[in-house]
């Protein structure tokens, strides 16, 4: 079915094509652009968090016996008595040495890099699982729906997708917990691991992980499914109308090859863009989902850090998410140019 002998050749052509469009220069230029954007975002977040309140007051507010002197000492200890520009430069200097400081309140005094690393892994795990399964399910459904436009199947799919897009994820999540955890007792109420190793199913850590992952991942998959189905469907409809699809049929290709080789390859171009942009955003975690399922991810950490005015954690997560979004966008752009030769990288 696919042109095996041509694969190597076409890859060679593609590489030549990309070299012609001076891809290396483009990537370099884009990377240079990232620097001012990155620092711009950093400054905004750095300044705005420090306008939000005084963390020392928040920490000591409930303690009636705290002295003004102790407060002073704490402020000095955190370096909050220094002028803002000095704090910022110090933060940048430390950041360039791979140090994002220590948290004030969350897991008191832990290095922010460790903290973000731990939580980011959980976010990745949840989000990638959901993304993988939503694409796996959405693409074939979208294709089928487009091929049988206006059929009963298509109407069912589009209607369901529309409903799926409209139901907020916290509602879906709570209902899922109510049914599968509360009533049926099949899955845990939340969290990513059992605290007590004796509760691991069959004593296996991996099974415990999957057991905890199942419910939030399923809810997220359904939430992400709907827009991808609609996107694949509309994009496929657009492509199927093109003459080159007729030309492929006229040259004697089987319907399957026409759909999966010619049509799908072209229909997936907008889907790649969507997934790329989504991918960047999802690394910030889904605060709502993570809150509902008590998932120890970046999103929940962010919310917690803000509510406790934990400056180093807030800025640390910002650094991490900003970098991820910027890199994801860059990768999307490059992938886009690779899969669609009409895009010229200037």
């Amino acid at each position: 079915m696919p042109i095996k002998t041509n694969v190597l050749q076409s890859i060679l052509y593609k590489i030549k094509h990309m070299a012609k469009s001076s891809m290396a220069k483009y990537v370099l230029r884009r990377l240079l652009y990232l620097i001012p954007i990155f620092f711009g975002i950093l400054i905004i977040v750095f300044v705005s968090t420090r306008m939000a309140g005084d963390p020392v007051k928040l920490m000591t507010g409930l303690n009636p016996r705290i002295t003004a002197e102790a407060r002073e000492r704490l402020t000095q200890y955190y370096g909050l008595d220094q002028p803002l520009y000095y704090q910022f430069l110090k933060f940048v200097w430390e950041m360039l040495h791979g140090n994002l400081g220590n948290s004030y309140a969350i897991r008191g005094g832990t290095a922010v890099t460790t903290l973000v690393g731990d939580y980011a892994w959980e976010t990745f795990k949840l989000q990638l699982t959901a993304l993988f399964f939503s694409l796996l399910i959405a693409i074939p459904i979208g294709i089928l729906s487009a091929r049988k436009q206006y059929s009963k199947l298509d109407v069912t799919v589009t209607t369901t997708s529309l409903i799926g897009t409209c139901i907020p994820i916290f509602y879906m999540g709570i209902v899922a917990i109510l049914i599968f955890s509360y009533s049926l007792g099949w899955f845990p109420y939340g969290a990513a691991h059992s605290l007590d190793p004796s509760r691991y199913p069959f004593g296996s850590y991996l099974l415990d992980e999957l057991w905890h992952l199942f419910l939030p991942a399923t809810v997220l998959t359904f939430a992400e499914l709907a827009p991808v189905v609609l996107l694949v469907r509309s994009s496929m409809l657009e492509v199927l109308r093109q003459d080159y699809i007729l030309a492929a049929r006229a040259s004697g290709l089987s319907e399957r090859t026409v759909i999966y080789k010619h049509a799908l390859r072209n229909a997936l171009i907008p889907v790649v863009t969507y997934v790329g942009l989504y991918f960047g955003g999802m690394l910030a975690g889904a605060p709502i989902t993570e809150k509902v399922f008590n998932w120890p991810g970046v999103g929940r950490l962010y919310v917690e850090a803000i509510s406790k005015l934990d400056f180093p954690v807030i800025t640390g997560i910002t650094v991490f998410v900003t970098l991820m979004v910027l890199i994801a966008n860059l990768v999307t752009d490059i992938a886009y140019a690779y899969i669609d030769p009409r895009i010229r990288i200037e």
Partner: protein
Amino acid sequence: MSAEIILEVKNLVKHYPLTSRGIFLKKEVGVVHAVDNVSFSVRKGETFGLVGESGCGKTSTARAILYLDPPTSGEIYFEGQEIGRIFKSKNHQDLLKLRRKMQYVFQNPYASLDPRMTVADIIMEPFVIHKHVPKEKWHNRLYELLELVGLEEYHAERYPHEFSGGQRQRICIARALAVEPKLLIADEPVASLDVSVRAQILNLLQELQQKFGITYLYISHDLSTVRHICHRVAVMYLGKFVEIAETSELFNSPLHPYTQALLSAIPVPDPENKRSRIVLPGEVPSPINPPKGCRFHPRCIYAKKHNCVENVPELVDVGKGHWVACNKVKR
């Protein structure tokens, strides 16, 4: 040109269901009579022109012949074989054989090339499908084809978007030629091209015909290109053939009032010449509810005299291979 008939179409009908979307599901509310009971035959090695206004069913006819849009009814014989049976039997080998013999060049070269394939991939794909060229000769054949249509070897590794419209149409022609077809259906191949490029493509088509003896079914609304390239011409109006004749015969002595009106609309490059243009009243009626009797009667000045509202004219031979469907013409 021989008298041997390569393609014969008998009573071809193509109807499209007209649907309206209900609240949930579509329902059929009518039928578009795109092609209604059309019969004609094409001789081996000739260029058979199909002309008519847009929407008269030219493209529907062509697509139905290739089963890209299966016809509603009617029979199509290619080299004596009824091809509908082959398409319905789903015998993959027979089907491939048939696909090799008939090819299609589309109207819009901007939409008919897969943007993600290089020219080499596009032209060599038929080799992969039909396996009629040994693998080690693929590239030789590719370069031969490129040269044949007037492109250079280095064009092979480029993508379609890097070419102009005329060059793209050349790629389309090369792709069609890759299977060494006997019949090439050219659906307005020059309509979307610049006038300066049109002549080049038409000359290319003629050259290829002389070299390989390919039969063309040439579809166009542009009468001057039809006159230039076609041996015989059929005029279509609202899904029906109204006149078929040799090109010179048709252009010199058109019999059907619609053909006469069409021909009178060709611009003559002579400012002194005062043309007598026949301007038809009204618009082309809708193919959803085509007029009863002769389909042309609402716009025809002879309609009252011959009671065309009721009498449906049949295509009749008036001699010299000139067929016309008009009540006015005496048998």
